[in-house]
Structures are given as C-alpha cells and as structure tokens.
C-alpha cells in the first residue's frame, strides 16, 4: 500500500466501483424498472380502463409500484459483496463504515431509483394524470426513492447472511415504508385536485434528512452483525 485514501476519496472510489459494476451488469438492473412498468400495466387491466378512475388512483398506483420495484432491487445492495467477500474488506477498512455504506446506498439509488424518475412521466401521462400533478409526482419520486433505498439498506444488511432472506426482507421493510407512501401519494393527490402539496413535500424532505443521518449507522451495525 503506497498511499492511503482519504475519506472522500474512498467514498468516491466505492461509488464509482458500484456504478461500474452496475454498468457491466445492465440486464440485472433493468429488471426492477421493467417490473415497475409491468405492475402499473396490470392495474388498468384489472380495474377496467375507465379514464376518470385511472386518473384518480394514478398517484397511488405509481407509488405502490415504485415501492415494490424498490424492494425487488434491494437485495443487490450488499448481496454480491457479501458473496465475494468484499463486504468484509469494507468493514475492515480504516474509514467509518457508515460513510462507506452511504456511498453504496447512493450508487444503488442512482441505478435503481433515478431511472424511475425518467419513466414516471410517461406512465403518469398514460394513466391520464393532470399535468399539474406530474411535476409534484416527479418531485416526490426524487425525494422519496432515496428514503426507500436508505431504509431498505438496513433490512438487507440484517438479512444478507440468510439463505431465504427475501420474504423476511419484505416483512421487515414494507411497514417502515408506510410514511413515505402516505406522504408521497397524498402530495401528488393534493396537486392533482388543485391544492398546495408543499406541506407533504416538506415532511418527505424531513424524512429524507432523518434517514440520511440515522440509517447508515444502523446499516453498519447490522452489517457487522451479518458478517461476523
């Protein structure tokens, strides 16, 4: 080892590594996005294609689908690192694990949360959501999906060592997603019916900062537990 990385260098390094891995593994990371589109397609088929009904429930549908897609992709945050042992190297590094965890979660959000932002306007338009509500929808997705990744990381860290972690993971994580779902969907609904959604947006922002500051510590503790 000729030189030591500073903390910010380590953060950027880990972020770049994860993004590069995702880039080489495009098919795997496209799945949650496809799943998101597919789930939304199911609703008009199940509920009938009446435009007023779809426009009314569109915020709820899009957010439930985003929640499920986020859950589906969670496992990839730590799974491959756990399997090939690089997770232990991260835990052994001289830098605070919480910061490195934050780098991994950011990478995960960039490859799974951000693409939802690009598809959502298309789907909102297809469901007949009013244009005024679409900007609010995008804003809630922009603020809400990082929270999903951050909370989900705790769940994955707790279950990554288990053989059948998947079903347990959903039981752990979905109840904790409830506040995000409520505020994001009701912000969009408010905007759709012509009210001011800023109160809910501020609440979402508060959740975002709370989870950025607390979740990496819990995730780091859980990872230490899983790797031991």
């Amino acid at each position: 080892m000729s030189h030591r990385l500073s903390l910010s260098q380590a953060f950027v390094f880990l972020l770049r590594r994860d993004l590069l891995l995702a880039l080489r593994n495009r098919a795997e990371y496209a799945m949650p996005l496809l799943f998101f589109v597919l789930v939304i397609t199911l609703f008009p088929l199940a509920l009938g294609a009446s435009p007023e009904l779809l426009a009314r429930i569109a915020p709820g549908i899009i957010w439930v689908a985003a929640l499920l897609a986020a859950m589906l992709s969670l496992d990839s945050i730590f799974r491959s690192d756990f399997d090939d042992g690089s997770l232990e190297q991260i835990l052994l590094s001289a830098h605070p694990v919480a910061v490195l965890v934050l780098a991994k979660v950011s990478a995960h959000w960039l490859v799974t949360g951000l693409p939802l932002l690009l598809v959502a306007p298309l789907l909102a338009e297809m469901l007949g959501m009013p244009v005024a509500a679409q900007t609010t929808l995008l804003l809630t997705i922009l603020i809400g999906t990082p929270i999903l990744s951050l909370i989900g990381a705790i769940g994955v860290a707790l279950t990554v060592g288990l053989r059948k972690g998947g079903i347990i993971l959903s039981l752990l994580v979905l109840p904790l997603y409830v506040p995000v779902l409520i505020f994001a969907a009701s912000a969009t609904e408010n905007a759709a019916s012509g009210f001011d959604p800023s109160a809910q947006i501020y609440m979402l922002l508060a959740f975002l900062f709370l989870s950025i500051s607390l979740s990496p510590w819990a995730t780091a503790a859980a990872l230490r537990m899983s790797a031991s």
Partner: protein
Amino acid sequence: MFLWFHKLGSPPHFYRIAGKWIPWLGWIFLLLLAAGLYGGLVEAPPDYQQGESYRIIFVHVPSAWMSLFIYVVMAICGAIIIIWHMKLAEVVLISSAPIGASFTFLALVTGSLWGKPMWGTYWVWDARLTSELILLFLYLGIIGLHNAIDDKRTAGRAVAILALVGVVNIPIIHYSVEWWHSLHQGPTVTKFDKPSIHWSMLLPLLLMALAFQVYYVLALFQKCRAELLRRERNSKWVEEL
C-alpha cells in the same frame, strides 16, 4: 444496586428468581383480574350512549396499552444488547415479541368486535387501527427475523437493531397515518366523543390494566425460563437442575 443488576443478568440467578416469583405473580394476576372483571362487568353502570357493549373496553384498552408498552420494553432491551451485549436482554427481547404480538392482535380483534355495533363496520382505515396493524407487522417481522437466523447470539443482535429502528419509526408511522386521515376527509364518520370517564368505569379499567401488566411479567418469566434452558442446555447449571 449495581451488584443486584449484575446478578440479575446471570442466567442461573435469573432462572431461580423468576421461578420463585411465578406463583406469586399468578395469584396477584388472578386477584386483579377477578376484581377488574367484577368491577367492569357487574358493578360499572351501562353507558348512556353505548349501553352494555362498551364493556369491551376493559379488555380492549389495556391490551392496546400493553401492545405499545411491550414494544418500548423491547427497544430498551435492544439498546442494552447493543451497548452491553447482555445475554439476558436478548432473551427478554425475543420472549416479549410473541406476547406483544398477541396483545396487539387482541386489541385489533376486540376493537373490530366493538366497532361492529358502534360504527356499523368491523374495520375502517382509521389512523389508530392502521398504525396498530402496522405495529403487528413489526412484531411479526421481529419474530420472523429471529427464527430465520440459526445462531441465536447473532439473532439477538439482529432483532436488537430491528427493534431500535422500529421504535424510531413508530411515532413517524403513527403521526403520518393520523395526518393522512385528516388530509383525506375520510368517508366514514368514526369519531364519537368520549365522555370524560366516570371513576366507576375508570377503576376497573385501571385494575384490568394492572392485571394485564402482571400477566405480561408472568408470561415473560415463563417464556424466558424456557428460552434460557433451550439456549444454555449444554451449560453446567442446567445439568445440575
């Protein structure tokens, strides 16, 4: 004081103390339960609005209180586990989870049975009902996670982290659900004004709450003893029993 605390943390000592307390707790529980039920079902007058059917609060309200109380106990155990790695706290945490889940379930069932004659429906997506339901899922998540991990020491730490994360989230979930309801203009009228409660109803209610509290400690001690035996089955003090 510290010595007492330290001694209580040792499994054989706790096993013996808990064994001595269990019969006493059982009798106290039965006495309180009998007094509370008599006061609630016989002595207390019928409500002027709800008639006799309000009497279910003597079960419903204490179990709802217990469902929250037990979660807080579990979170405190979680903190103790993370900070001091205390074995007994792991046992208390995981033994509390099924009891807490049962009380939550009981609160939901009695609540919906009460809701049918009062509101005309078993279930509404009201703030309290929804957050109680989510609390039940949190309990089940903790039990599920504990069962999924084979090594029980690791499992103890995992559920400790989960319980702590959950306790941060419970107020958030509670208030978000409450605000969501008020933001929505709910379709059903679920509000009914609670008349300030008369002592003839309050006294049995408090007796029942106390009885449930004692029952929790009683059930907890029994479950803890069983769990301790299971975990320490290879140790010397268990063989000596």
